């Protein structure tokens, strides 16, 4: 208990609940804190500053800030089944049972072996990796492993299964207010009264922003904290307002599409929650008001990264919000008035402020007078030129300092302390503005980059806009809220503009917001080096690194950023960017405005991968589509394969058959008796309208205008580049009505393409397309016995099967089910594709299997279908073609009509290069060893003994064992293949295996004349 109280001060009206003790663990040690504490505040309450080791030099690092700007205090949270690295201790709310551990140290925080890097830091300058590990080039793979181990931040959980729920949510609003400080609350409450749909989001666990830290004054004659409380209550009770705390607006994109990560139950640390751990919001806002506040800048001097050196505003926050005094002997180092409030807070909390070191020579304001009256020593025109200590700050060197000349002008004064507050001015949080490609302008008065506020879609207000004095923030917020509401009201008549709007009045000590920009404190002492004057704490880059980069010739801010990695860590340089630009500018003798600023990119703070995935995991990762015959396949032991989103029966192993045995049996049975394939997934499109024939003539290479009613024709579809795009059989049902089939995988793409043509190119054609892929279930009955089975199944007109020529269609009834029967074949056997309305699909299949039993009917899967069609040399679009194959390459010149004046791809096919004899052309391959099956995708060469890299002739597109030929067969696309028939090729193998020898042959291996097909 004693330890718990060591840095807690008496209650100050803070946000923690002293009645609720919380137990947690950090680095295997047990601690307690109070409900409302962050991990950082609870650790500081125990006097713990040191929480991590730095990225490159493994220097000890302490808690530095109090919010999302924190560069040092990155910890790993350990759960039952998973862990999450790189979370900011300043944003983790503690709960009972929380287990956290520090990162980037081995074996422990206090003794870290790799801190040896710190001793040798002069050997690790900017660009160290580029300079050192480039030779020999092949060694990089080796170096990389070592570097990855030594550097890096945190460790990922090895278990990829996360038991927690992460959800997504879409939302829409008229106005999004980002941030709930003075500016955010004021704009939101005005908007709320207008009736507009408002969303207000804040990354912290409660609304109020800096008013939670600085509230020692009145707003509208009531205490500031009460004003916040009232305003938030009004917002929460307004039906048109959605209040989202613990919600980080991480990205703002075109058209005000905003991504927000809400920590819904994460802070409770409970399991079995109905609500998700996090919710990722995808919000569309008509207007956005950015009231994101500002982040304090550190000062850059030697040793400024020691634990115990913190942002002045953070120290004040820990006192006022969490009743935690981070150190009892404090020194304040500042270039502005704001740190004086910190001095007051420390003094009030019972700490001893040894002195305030102010870079300004003659600072004057109401607050300074007040501090002076208390008796705090102010050293104006001075600077801290170095800090000393082992694992915590112990003392500082102070000297008179001339900011203009950038040099100390007096002897050094040593002073001991255990806390140093630093304040180098404020940076507006312009990240979201910058993400939307908003420009930034340098403001000389306030020494900061602020948004240009030129957009109509979003606007920054308050500290985010470079307005730091509270009175002015309220005036600005009121004005901007009113104008935004006026704009919204123009588009939406439900939004009222007449509500009385008043500017809140405050009685706060006036401060003088004119910081004295001083980017780097030059020690001017031989023993003090700026190699420990840190600019980017998370990436360990120093003032010396930036100077070196300039010396080596870098001048662009973007290049220096990348070369020194300043601002490239997970905190995206929230505390470092402007200091780096300041130092760069003075090295280049340029102004900051001339030097320019880098761009902030999403996300504002890292977003958990779990939140990005949401519920699109496991069975919901991708829809699985099944045909109506699926249950039959399943109960008959089918193995399935995924074709696009479809699940298709692949093969049906019986009694311990292997894959090959089952496929061989199915192929054999289909050729000798009969086979049945579920072909329901084929794309099907109804083409209707007076110009349908003309339309088909334009999209297929062959002629469809002359196709008689009731007849079917195979067609090849090209894109404008003359390459094969899709194929299928189209049947004429009536003069103005066709039934088109497409490949399974291409169905959606073909329909979109055809619709695009009709809607954008051929507006004159009166044609309507409707997808009926799922309206019809299709059973493909194939083999010598197929006609007999079909006849046996017909419930009427049994004789129609007698006169049923190849490539025709008949409508009839099978087992009472209305059917469209097509005599078409993909196996080379006599075959019938039976289409029935999908509700009868399962019944049709069972019936055919039952009747077919006495005819030796065998169900076959997609693998057998592949073998059967390959025996016939039939192509599969997407397997024999890859978007670079023309009909001529497939030796299918016969399908290109010479009579038609035009079709898509015709012009491209007439280009000279399309008939170049050395194009890859489709051929068959027969292996010398009939049992050897060539792997698909392998490459063929003429001479297997040539030097590497070998000259490749082409690749194997399909390869199977054919049980009917008792021979391995393959289809290949080979350079000049059509003229190479009879030649021998070799297919080199991996792993030292002998190359496979094969002969180039015609791709039709079986029934070359097609006698079985026409039967």
């Amino acid at each position, binding site marked *: 208990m004693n330890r718990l109280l060591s840095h807690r001060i008496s209650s100050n009206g803070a946000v923690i609940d002293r009645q609720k003790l919380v137990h947690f663990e950090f680095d295997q040690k047990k601690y307690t804190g109070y409900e409302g504490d962050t991990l950082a505040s609870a650790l500081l309450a125990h006097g713990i500053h040191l929480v991590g080791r730095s990225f490159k030099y493994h220097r000890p690092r302490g808690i530095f800030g109090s919010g999302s700007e924190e560069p040092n205090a990155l910890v790993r949270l350990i759960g039952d089944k998973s862990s999450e690295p790189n979370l900011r201790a300043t944003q983790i709310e503690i709960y009972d049972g929380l287990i956290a551990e520090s990162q980037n140290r081995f074996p422990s925080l206090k003794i870290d072996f790799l801190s040896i890097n710190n001793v040798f830091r002069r050997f690790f300058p900017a660009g160290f990796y580029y300079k050192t590990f480039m030779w020999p080039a092949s060694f990089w793979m080796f170096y990389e492993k070592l570097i990855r181990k030594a550097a890096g931040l945190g460790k990922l959980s090895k278990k990829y299964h996360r038991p927690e729920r992460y959800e997504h949510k879409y939302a829409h609003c008229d106005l999004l207010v980002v941030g709930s400080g003075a500016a955010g609350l004021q704009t939101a409450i005005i908007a709320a009264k207008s009736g507009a749909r408002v969303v207000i989001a804040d990354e912290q666990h409660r609304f109020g922003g800096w008013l939670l830290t600085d509230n020692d004054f009145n707003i509208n004659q009531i205490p500031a904290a009460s004003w916040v409380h009232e305003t938030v209550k009004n917002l929460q009770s307004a039906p048109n307002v959605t209040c989202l705390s613990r919600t980080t607006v991480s990205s703002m994109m075109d058209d005000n599409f905003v991504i927000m990560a809400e920590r819904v139950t994460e802070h409770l640390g409970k399991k079995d929650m109905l609500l998700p751990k996090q919710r990722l919001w995808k919000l569309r806002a008509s207007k956005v008001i950015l009231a994101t506040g500002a982040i304090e800048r550190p000062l850059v001097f030697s040793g400024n990264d020691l634990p115990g050196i913190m942002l002045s505003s953070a120290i004040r926050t820990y006192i006022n919000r969490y009743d935690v005094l981070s150190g009892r002997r404090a020194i304040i180092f500042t270039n502005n008035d704001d740190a004086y409030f910190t001095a007051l807070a420390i003094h009030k909390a019972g700490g001893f402020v040894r002195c305030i070191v102010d870079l300004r020579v003659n600072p004057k304001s109401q607050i300074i007078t007040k501090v002076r009256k208390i008796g705090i020593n102010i050293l104006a025109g001075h600077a801290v030129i170095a800090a000393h200590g082992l694992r915590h700050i112990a003392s500082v060197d102070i000297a008179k300092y001339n900011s203009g000349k950038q040099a100390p002008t007096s002897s050094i004064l040593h002073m001991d302390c255990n806390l140093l507050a630093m304040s180098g001015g404020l940076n507006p949080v312009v990240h979201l503005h910058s993400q939307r490609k908003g420009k930034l302008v340098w403001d000389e008065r306030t020494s900061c980059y602020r948004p240009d506020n030129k957009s109509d879609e979003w606007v920054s207000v308050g500290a985010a806009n470079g307005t730091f004095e509270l009175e002015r923030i309220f005036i600005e917020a009121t004005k901007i809220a009113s104008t935004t509401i006026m704009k919204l009201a123009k588009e939406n008549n439900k939004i009222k503009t007449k509500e009385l709007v008043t500017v809140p009045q405050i009685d706060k000590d006036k401060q003088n917001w004119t910081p004295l920009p001083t980017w780097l404190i030059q020690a001017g002492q031989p023993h003090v080096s700026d190699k420990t004057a840190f600019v980017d704490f998370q990436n360990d880059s120093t003032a010396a690194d930036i100077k070196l980069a300039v010396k080596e010739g870098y001048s662009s801010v973007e290049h220096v950023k990348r070369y020194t990695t300043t601002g490239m860590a997970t905190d995206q340089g929230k505390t470092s960017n402007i200091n780096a630009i300041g130092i760069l500018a003075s090295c280049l003798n340029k102004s900051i405005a001339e030097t320019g600023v880098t761009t902030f990119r999403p996300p504002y703070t890292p977003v958990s991968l779990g939140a990005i995935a949401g519920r699109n995991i496991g069975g919901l990762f991708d829809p699985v589509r099944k045909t109506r015959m699926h249950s039959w396949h399943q109960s008959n032991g089918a193995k399935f394969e995924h074709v696009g989103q479809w699940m298709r029966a692949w093969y049906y192993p019986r009694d311990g058959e292997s894959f090959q045995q089952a496929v061989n049996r199915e192929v054999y049975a289909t050729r000798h008796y009969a086979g049945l394939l579920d072909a329901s997934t084929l794309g099907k499109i109804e083409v209707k309208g007076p110009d349908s024939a003309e339309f088909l003539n334009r999209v297929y290479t062959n002629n469809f205008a002359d196709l008689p009613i009731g007849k079917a024709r195979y067609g090849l579809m090209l894109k404008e580049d003359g390459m094969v795009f899709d194929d299928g059989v189209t049947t004429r049902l009536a003069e103005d009505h066709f039934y088109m089939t497409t490949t399974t995988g291409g169905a959606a793409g073909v329909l979109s393409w055809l619709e695009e043509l009709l809607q954008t190119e051929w507006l004159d054609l009166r044609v309507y397309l409707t997808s009926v892929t799922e309206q*019809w279930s299709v059973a493909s009955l194939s083999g010598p016995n197929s006609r007999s089975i079909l006849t046996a199944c017909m419930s009427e007109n049994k004789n129609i099967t007698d006169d049923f020529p190849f490539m025709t269609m008949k409508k009839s009834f099978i087992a009472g089910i209305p059917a469209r029967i097509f005599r078409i074949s993909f196996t080379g056997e006599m075959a019938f594709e039976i289409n029935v309305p999908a509700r009868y699909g399962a019944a049709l299949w069972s019936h055919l299997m039952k009747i077919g039993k006495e005819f030796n009917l065998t169900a076959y899967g997609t693998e057998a279908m592949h073998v059967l069609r390959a025996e016939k040399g039939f192509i599969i679009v997407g397997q024999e073609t890859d978007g670079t194959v023309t009909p001529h390459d497939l030796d299918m010149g016969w399908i290109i009509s010479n009579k038609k004046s035009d079709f898509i791809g015709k012009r491209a096919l007439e280009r000279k290069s399309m008939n170049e004899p050395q194009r890859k052309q489709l051929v068959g391959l027969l292996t010398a060893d009939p049992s050897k099956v060539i792997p698909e995708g392998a490459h063929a060469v003429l001479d297997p003994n040539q030097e590497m890299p070998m000259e490749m002739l082409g690749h194997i597109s399909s390869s199977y064992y054919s049980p009917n030929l008792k021979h391995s067969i393959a289809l290949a696309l080979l350079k000049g293949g059509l003229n190479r028939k009879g030649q021998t090729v070799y297919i080199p193998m991996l792993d030292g295996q002998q190359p496979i020898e094969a002969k180039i042959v015609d791709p039709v291996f079986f029934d070359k004349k097609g006698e079985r097909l026409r039967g």
Partner: protein
Amino acid sequence: MVDTISRIVVGCTAFNDKKLPILKKPESLKAPLIELSEIKHLGKLNVRCGKKNRDALGKLIHCNLPIQINQINSKAGRFAISLGPDEYLILAEPGSENQLEKTLNSSDISKYISVVNVSDALCAIQISGPKVRDVLSKGCAIDFHPDSFYKNKAVQCDLALANIVLVCLEENEFIFICRTSFAEYILDWFIDASYEYGIFVSDGI
């Protein structure tokens, strides 16, 4: 904790004889806040026609085709949903679709229109309950504010990873139409998305 009160085998057409947990409800809730059921065997016709024939077609269907897109008209158990400038989906009482298709295809205007029976290609699922808009907004980018998505409005949109036609019947009552092969996925998605509210899945109407 979610507990499964009972399991029955439901012979739904769209759900492929999937074994459905009929009621999933958090213990803390008295009743589930979402209900879902399939409207089985509804007749569905995809109709394409230009402005000229719109009124004539409406007369034949006994339900006027909506003039504005994203609207529905309903009359005597029939719905006409506008899907685009010249595309409509007609929902008709089960079993009436074949006759309706014949009537339209043998009419005077049959040359200029396209009528395709898609009763088996699509399925219709009804969802309702006080939290139905919240569940939909977990997977659908449409604005579900009642001022924006109101009675008799229809949209074609994505729900999670499936394409649907969504129709608002009452403030907290919707039907959506999707390709039948996506019905199982959508059902799984809905049960999952309703986790915090509880869902009652019924055998279908």
